[in-house]
C-alpha cells in the first residue's frame, strides 16, 4: 500500500529536504507552495498525511487547517504543522485549529520522521 504525504511549503529548499527524507521512508511525496488553493489541493490529493507550513503566501497555515477541519471527511486527517515563528501563542492557535502535531523550525530530521511515523500509526489504528 502506497503512503502519500502532501507537503505544503513555500520554501523550495525545505521542501526538498523533507521530500528527500520521506521518500527514503517509502512515502509518495507531493508538494505545493501556495496557501491560497491549499484546501482544494488537499481535497483533490487525498493524502494520508499533510505537512503544513504556517507562513505561506496567499493564506496562512492556521486558516488552511481551520477550513480543512470544517470539511466532513477531513476531521481525522493527520496534519503535522511546521512553523518558523515559534511563539507559544502559535502552538495554542494550532491546537485550537485542530492540529495533530506541531513542530518548530529548525527541526531535526529524526524528529520529523518520528512524528510522521507516529501520526501514520495512529491514523492506521482508527
Amino acid at each position, binding site marked *: 500500500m502506497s503512503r502519500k504525504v502532501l507537503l505544503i511549503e513555500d520554501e523550495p*529548499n*525545505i521542501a526538498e529536504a523533507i521530500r528527500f527524507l520521506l521518500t527514503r521512508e517509502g512515502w509518495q511525496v507531493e508538494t505545493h507552495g501556495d496557501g491560497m488553493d491549499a484546501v482544494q489541493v488537499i481535497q483533490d490529493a487525498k493524502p494520508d498525511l499533510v505537512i503544513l507550513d504556517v507562513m505561506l503566501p496567499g493564506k496562512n497555515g492556521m486558516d488552511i487547517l481551520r477550513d480543512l477541519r470544517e470539511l466532513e471527511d477531513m476531521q481525522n486527517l493527520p496534519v503535522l504543522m511546521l512553523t518558523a515563528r515559534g511563539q507559544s501563542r502559535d502552538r495554542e492557535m494550532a491546537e485550537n485549529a485542530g492540529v495533530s502535531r506541531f513542530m518548530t523550525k529548525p527541526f531535526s530530521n529524526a524528529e520529523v520522521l518520528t512524528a510522521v511515523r507516529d501520526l501514520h500509526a495512529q491514523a492506521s489504528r482508527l
Partner: protein
Amino acid sequence: MATLNVLILVCLGYVVLLFGVAFAADRMAAAGRGKWLRSPLIYTLSLSIYCTAWTFYGAVGNAARSGLEFVTIYLGPTLVMVSWWWGLRKLVRIGRSQRVTSIADLISSRYGKSNTLAVCVTILAVLGGTPYIALQLQSITLSFSIFAEADPSGLYREGSSVFWVAAGLAMFAILFGTRNLDANERHHGVVTAIALESVVKLFALLAVGIFVVWGVAGGIGPMMDRIDASEIGQWNVDAGRWTTFIFLSAAAFVCLPRMFQVMVVENDDEGHLRTAAWAFPLYLLLMSLFVVPIAVIGLDLMPEGSNPDLFVLTVPLSQGNDWLAMLSFIGGFSSATSMVIVTAMALSTMVSNHLVMPIWLNMQEGSGSVSGDVRNIVLLARRVSIAVIMALGYFYYSLSGGGTALASIGLVAFAGISQILPALVGGLFWRGATRTGALVGLSVGFVLWIYTLLLPGMGAAWMPETVLQNGPFGLGWLRPQALFGIEGIDPMVHTVMWSMSLNTIAFCVASLLSFPSPLERLQGAQFVNVFDHSAAPRGWTGSVAQSEDLMIMTQRILGAGPAQEFFQSEAEQQGGRSRLPEPTPGFLERLERELSGSVGAATAHAMIGQIVGGSSVSVEDLLAVADESAQMLEYSSQLEVKSAELSRTARQLREANTKLTQVSEQKDSFLSQVSHELRTPMTSIRAFSEIMRDTQGLSAEEQTRYAAIIHDEALRLTRLLDDLLDLSVLESGQVNLNMGDDSLRSVLDRAVSSALAGTDQQLSVRRSLISERIPLHTDLDRLGQVFINLISNAQKYCDAAEPVLTISAHDVGGQVVIDFTDNGSGIPPEAQSMVFEKFARVGVDKVGGAGLGLAICREIMQRLGGEISYLPGQGGAAFRISLPLAYRQAAQ
C-alpha cells in the same frame, strides 16, 4: 423796647422747645404710640418747609419792590398740589416701593442704579443748597440786627451769632436726623418739630397781618383803599416772568432735596397726599394773605431806604409792639431753622450715600473685605456731611458778606435744582428715558445754569464785564445773558428758557439714541408702571409692554439668541401682527416651562408672576435670581468645558494607548518576522547538513547540490543579519555620515555595475549621461547603497520579457530628482503604501531578499535629507529619489 437779651432768651427757649418736641416725638414713635405723628396734618405742615425765611420775609420785600409777582412763588406749588397730585402720588409710591433715600437716589435708581447720575444730582443739590442755607443764616442775622440796633447795649456780635446759630442747627440735624439709617424709618422727631415750626411761622405772619390791617390801617375797608392807592395794587403782570416763576417754583417744589425729603422719604401713607392736596394750598394762601397789606403799610410807615425784606419785623417794632415783633422774629427763625435742618439732613444723606460711601468702599476693596461695622461708618459719614454742609453755608455767608448778593439766591437755587426735572419726570412717565439721556440733559442744563445765571450773579470776579457785554472771546452769540443773540429778556427768564428747553431736548435726543441696560429697562418699567405692579394680581394676563419685560428677563436667563427665537416663534404662532407675542395664558405657560429648564419651576413662576401678575417679589430679588442663574449657567458651562477637556484627555490617552499597542504589536510582529526569516534558512541548513551526515551513499551530485544549498542559505542568513544591523543603526539615528564629493554620474556608474555583477539575468539599464552631470556632496556610499537596492529590485522583480530599467535625473528647483522606472507590471495599488515597511515583500515569489531593502533605503534618504517615494501610474514600478542641492551648500 424789648431787650436783645430777652430775645436771645426767647430764642434759646424756643430752640429748647424744639429739641423737646423732637425728642418726645421720637420717644413716642419708638414706643409705638402717637398715631397723630403720622397724621395727614403733620404731613401737610411738614411740607410747609417750602416756606423758608426767604418766603417769610422776602415775600413782603418782593411785594414792596415788584408788586404781585411774589404770588408766583405760591402759585407754583399750589398748581402742582392741585393739578398734579397724581404725579406726586406716583413719586411717593415709587419712593416707598424702591426704598428711595433722596432725590439723587431716585434718579440713580431709575436709570439703572447709576452712581454717576447720583453724584451729578448731589453736586447740583449741594451747589444750589449751600447759598440757600447761607440765605437762611443771613435772614436770622438781619433780624437779629434789627433788634441789636434798637438795643445798642446788647451783647450782640453779628459774626459770632451766625456761627452759633449754624452750629446749633447742625447739632439739631445731627441729633434728630441721623438717629437711624433705614430710609423707611421716619424721622418723627424732626418732622414733628418742623410741623410745629410751620404752625409758629404761619401764626406769626397772620398775627402781624392782623395787627397791620386792624391795628394800623383800621380795618379791611381802609386797608383796601390804601392798597388801591399804592403801586402794588396795580395789576402789572409781566407774562414771561410770571410763567417762568410759576414754572420754577413748581419745579423746585418737586425737585428740592428738602421737599423730596419731607414729601417722599418721610411720607408714611400715600393717602396723606389727598389731604395735602387741598390743605397745603390753603396753608400757602394763608401765608400770602397779608403779604400785600404788610408791604403797603411798611412802605407808608417806614422811612425811605429801609429794607422792605424786614417789614414783617420793623412794622410792629415801629409801632412799639415789641412782643409781636418778637413773635414775628420767632416765625422767621422757625422758617429758617426748619429749612436748614431738613436741607442739611437731605443733603447729608446724598453726600454720604453717593460721594463718601462709594469712595470709602473703593478704598476698603484694597484692604480686604468690608468689615461688619458699615452702619457706624455711614452714620459718621452723615454726621460729618451735615457739619460740612452747615460749614459751607456759613462760609458762603461770611464770604459773600451778607450783602444783597444773597437776595435773589432763592430763585437762582430754584433754577439750578429744576434742572433735575426733565430726568425726573421723564423717568416717571417715559420708559424710553435712559441713563445717557439723563446724564446729557442734566449736564447741559447744569452748565447753562452756571454760565448764564450763577456766575453772572456772583459778580465781576467770576464773570468779567467784557464777557457779559461781548461774549467769551468776542463771540457775541455766546453772551451769558443773551444766548444766540436773543436779547432783552429778563436774565432769569432767559436762563430758565434756554437751560430747561435745551436740557429737555438733550435728554430726549440722547435717550432715543442710546440703548438702556437690562437693569435700566427693568427699573424704568418698575417706575413707569409702578401702579400696575402694585395692583392686585390679575392672573396670567397682560399687555405687550409686559411682553417686553418678559423678553428682557428671558434674555437674561436663556441668552439673547434662544430668547429671541422663542419669542419670535410664539409671535408667529399668534399671527405675527407684532414683533412680540401677546402674553396669552398659553404663551405664559410655555415661557414658564422654558424658563423652568434654566432656573427651576418655582423661580420661573415667581419671575413671570412678578412681571405679569404682581407678586411680592421685588425687582432686585428678581435680578438677583437672574444673576444667580447666569452664574449657574456660567458655572455649568465651565463644567462643560472641564468635561470636554477631560474627554479630550481621555481620547488622547486612548489614542496614545492605541499607538503604544500598535507599536507593541509592530514590535511583536517584527520579532516574529525576524524569527521567521532567521529560522527558515537555518531549517534548510540543518536539514541538509543532517542529511549529509546521516545518509550513507549520497551521490557526488547530491553532495555538491546539498552543500550549495547550505552555502546559499548561510549567505542569506548573513545578508539578513547585515540588513537588520544596518536598519537598527539607521533607525537609532546613530549613523555617521561619511560626506564626500562626486558627480551623480559616477555614483550611478558604480551602483549599476555592482548591482548587476555576478547575475545571469539581463536587465538593461537606460541612462541619460548628460543630465547626470550633477555634482553631489553627500554620503556617497549610502546613496550608492540606495541605488544598488533599487537596481537589484528591478532586476529581481521586473516581470517583463525584456526587462528595462530607465534612470533619469533632473535638477528641479534646488533638488536633484532621480527616477528609477522599469517596464514590468509594477506594484499593485493596494501594496504601494506598504513597500517601504519592513518585511513588506510584495508578490508571491521569494527572490532572496528578506524585505528590508526599501525600508533601509527610506531610512538612508531621510538621513541624507532627501526622500524616496513610489511614483504610481508610470507603467512599471517607479521610484523617485530626491536630494536637496541646498544640502550641499549648507554643509560647506
